[in-house]
């Protein structure tokens, strides 16, 4: 599970650098697409709700001669949701947005911390350049050709998109436990990947682990311990 390249190493007073894995074009695009759908849906929902209330009937059409009330209550908030979505959410969620959360990435400053308000503003204002000529062409080319996969806005603001490390449940090695350090690591890995493995494969692996570390041959003997049972035995083995 070594760090994917490139990474950002931040110096620390302890002498041990903070290591962050930089997100690539795939994770960036994924996060952007999720965010784009969310902000579009939110802006449209506001517009539709406002238009229905304003028109007083089932019509989403804008009035021919828009009044101030239409602008202030319907059009302006919808536009604000769409255009300020990234800036406001990155500010409030300290470098994250819902899309970035889904993609497992966040924006950080070069010192590894959340970027300031000015940096986030600069980062988002430069979308005007990144989105040229269409579909974020400039931004995508910049991300593809730069070593740290940054778009122009990131270069300007001194920010990076890094992977959010998943805080997988950590199993503590207890004194007198049947498991050694290697065993803990294996069980932890197996439990973490449980859902992603085929039931037959995880059943086989679980039986082997239980046989080796718990002397538990019940699962092997009848071969019929259920998937759920096997998982529970593994969890009991590591004290979860």
């Amino acid at each position, binding site marked *: 599970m070594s760090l994917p390249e490139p990474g950002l190493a*931040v110096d620390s007073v302890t002498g041990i650098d903070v290591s962050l894995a930089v997100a690539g074009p795939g994770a960036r695009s994924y996060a952007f697409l999720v965010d784009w759908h969310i902000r579009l849906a939110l802006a449209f929902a506001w517009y539709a709700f406002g238009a229905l209330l304003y028109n007083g009937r089932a019509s989403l059409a804008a009035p021919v001669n828009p009044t101030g009330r239409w602008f202030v209550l319907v059009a302006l908030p919808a536009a604000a949701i769409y255009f300020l979505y990234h800036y406001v959410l990155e500010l409030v969620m300290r470098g994250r947005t819902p899309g970035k959360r889904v993609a497992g990435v966040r924006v950080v400053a070069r010192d590894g911390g959340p970027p300031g308000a*000015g940096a986030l503003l*600069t980062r988002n*204002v*430069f979308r005007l350049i990144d989105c040229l000529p269409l579909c974020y062409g400039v931004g995508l080319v910049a991300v593809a050709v730069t070593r740290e996969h940054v778009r122009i806005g990131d270069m300007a603001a001194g920010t990076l998109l890094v992977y959010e*490390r998943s*805080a997988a449940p950590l199993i503590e090695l207890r004194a007198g436990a049947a498991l050694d350090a290697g065993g803990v690591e294996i069980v932890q890995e197996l439990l973490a990947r449980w859902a992603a493995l085929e039931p037959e494969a995880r059943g086989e692996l679980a039986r082997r682990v239980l046989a080796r570390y718990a002397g538990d041959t019940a699962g092997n003997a009848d071969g019929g311990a259920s998937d759920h049972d096997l998982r529970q035995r593994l969890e009991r083995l590591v004290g979860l």
Partner: protein
Amino acid sequence: MRARDSGAERNRALTASLLKRASLWREADERARRLAHGRSPDAADALSLADDYRLLAHDLARARLLMPDSRAREYLEAAYARAHATLHHGAWRAGAALATLLRDELPRVVAALMPYIVWSTAIFVLTVAAGFALVHRYPELIALFASPDLIASVEHGRLWTQGLLNIVPSSVLSVQILANNIVVSLFAYCAGFFFGLGTLYILGLNGLMLGAVFAFVTAHGLGAQLAAFIVPHGCVELSVMCLSGAAGAAVGEALIRPGRESRIESFRVAALTSGTLLAACALLLVGAGLIEGFVSPDPRFPAWSRVAIGVGYWLLMLALLSGRLLRRRSAPS
């Protein structure tokens, strides 16, 4: 052989002792998460983050050596990064950040960008003069700068701004104008990325258009009316045009002449510095947009009040940019 075995045995023992500390890591991580989202009511709790940081650093160094491909190391990397960010950045408060930006950073940035502000103002004034001279000498060139409707309206002795409020309500007009102005300012800044040429183009084009329209309107005897329309909002709006041009010029020069730093580093410093000025520009344009929607087209405002509003808002802008508006009062001795 025996030495290798004893080394492996030692590593296994060290790994086992390390993994027995998992609950400490979990506690440290939880504290870092909690403190990242706000203040701690307990000072001792907040202070123990420094101890957590040292503990995580120590254990991470061992984990990188003993079990580089393990989940435990992954967990420690994440917890250590989180503790680092919390310890060095703490909780973020929007009010304090905005106050610092406007009170301390903005005047510093304005002082640093003063040569660019002077140059972009000079370029803007020159292009206004050029546009004026051009259309004054060759009136038919107005077709390059103004729409046929505007030209027809002025030729019939009417400014296009007259009766504007009968067509579009003030609030709608304000929003349209301020949105348009903010986008133009942002473009003038961002276009500095094209080695300053984009900024120069936007600044020059706006100057030429303003000068050309003024010359055309003056030739039809409507110059005073246009000036009365422009004064309330224009003092700040045109100043902001020059300020965003200055921000873009700083970005452009950083790319053309990066000095000792790399081009990207120089670009980053210039963009971040001048971005602060841009935030103030956006705020000022909101005010200018409201004036342009509610005051400028309304004939009920007499000339003196228009001048008072325009000059007053401009002086307010100067006070904000120079730091006098929000300066801290010194404590009594």
